[in-house]
């Protein structure tokens, strides 16, 4: 069951990502990205990380991508133009993407023994609450990175406010 889910949604994520690249219109690209986010959420869920799956849907698919679509609609962006720069990016991009893919798969395969493993659907049946585990880790062992990240986001928000104020 979990294997079937993994195959279906893994393929869907890859198809969505490819469609994102090949679509000419920004709205279609943004919607393919939503499909990728949702498939990733299902993959997280099938690994037993249901809180992460819900956060993925609410934050990425539900808030950030809505903002993307909203901005595309507001600016009424047209179809993408083929320019000289985009042709260069096209020529350089495919080997670059292939190189990154090879590098990542090499690292993951060679370090497989250190990474540990998980069982597909492993923790879904147990009574351990995912959320309490995540929050326990966040507020004990990972407290400093967590607080630093929140300050980073605060700085970004303040920067956005300052930039917007200047134009008013």
């Amino acid at each position, binding site marked *: 069951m979990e294997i079937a889910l993994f195959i279906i949604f893994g393929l869907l994520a890859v198809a969505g990502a490819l469609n994102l690249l090949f679509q000419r219109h920004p709205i279609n690209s943004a919607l393919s990205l939503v499909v990728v986010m949702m498939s990733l959420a299902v993959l997280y869920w099938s690994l037993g990380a249901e809180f992460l799956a819900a956060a993925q849907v*609410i934050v990425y698919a539900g808030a950030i991508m809505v903002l993307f679509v909203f901005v595309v*609609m507001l600016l009424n962006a047209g179809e993408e133009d083929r320019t000289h720069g985009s042709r260069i990016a096209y020529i350089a991009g495919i080997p670059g993407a292939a190189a990154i893919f090879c590098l990542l798969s090499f690292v993951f395969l060679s370090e497989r023994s250190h990474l540990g493993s998980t069982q597909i659907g492993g923790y879904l049946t147990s009574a351990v609450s995912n959320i309490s585990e995540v929050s326990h880790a966040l507020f004990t062992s990972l407290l400093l990175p967590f607080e630093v990240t929140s300050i980073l986001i605060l700085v970004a928000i303040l920067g956005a406010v300052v930039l917007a104020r200047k134009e008013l």
Partner: protein
Amino acid sequence: MSHLNHFEIFLLFSIVKILIVLVITLLGVAYTVLLERKVLGRLQNRWGPSRVGPFGILQPLVDGLKLFLKEDMMPLAVERPLFILAPIIALGCALISIAVVPFGATTIVDGVDLFQIANLNIGLLVILGVTSIGVYGIALSGWSSNNKYSLFGSLRATAQMISYELALGLSLVGVVLRAGSLSLRDIVASQSAHGALSWNIFGGYQFIAFFIYLMAAYAETNRTPFDLAEAESELVAGYHTEYSSMKFAMFFMAEYANMITVACVATLLFFGGASSPFGHTFDHAAPGLLLTGLISIFWFVAKVFAFLLLYIWVRGTLPRFRYDQLMGFGWKFLLPVAMVNVLATALALSYHS
């Protein structure tokens, strides 16, 4: 049913539950429309629909038939795939979230909970997530219609929904803190000790959170006084201007299904869900699993019905907000108050524990 194994029983029960809940929700949607037209009529000193059947009780069926038989017009300049996809997203998301709502007391037969389709341990987050996906239906409908009124309507609706989602989510944090769980069954169970006195709105001191939730929920469902997305006097009909026949009906049904969902969530989180307001005082008077279950469903439906009446009452009473007032209200009033409520609840809980 002894010749069926556990999985087959689970599958059969689930399919039957899904069908029953879907049919009841759609009937509920149809009759909420009738209720709204009747009550609004009375509020405005007229009769409302009264011709089809006794008291106009068959009106929703005839309306549905009319919408089915109307011509499905497809304007030439629309973005075809998205134009068709948008109402499907809107209605689909509106109907999915009802799947995690427990609408009766826990009644387990053959290992299957009869009165809830799926008991997830992140049920509340699922409802929030599905609601936030529902925004795409409205956003895409306005954009793909290729009509400036539709686009304005959907821009307004999208901005309003993502702004009020924050206040909505924060208003629920206090309840989650008190229950210590995101599972809707656990949240209901955390309020079941002393009947109405232990409901979150009274015993849990979450009345501020409740009023924030109520106002944010009106905005989330695009209902008056926050129905700027379909302000007739400014925008023809808002994001569904170009839609006709069943596609329009799907948006219409999605709006009312969303109303029912937020009423269900308010009932579960603040009014003790399917538990009786008298607590366990009269438990001995209703022996038997089935009768207890039916009584709990009665309480749940009564609470949801009261919320729907409140929706209609507000629609018949209050005028529409102006756009800047709407945004100011959401960001400058509801959001800070919700944050203060979260802090106060957390402090009180840590003081008591």
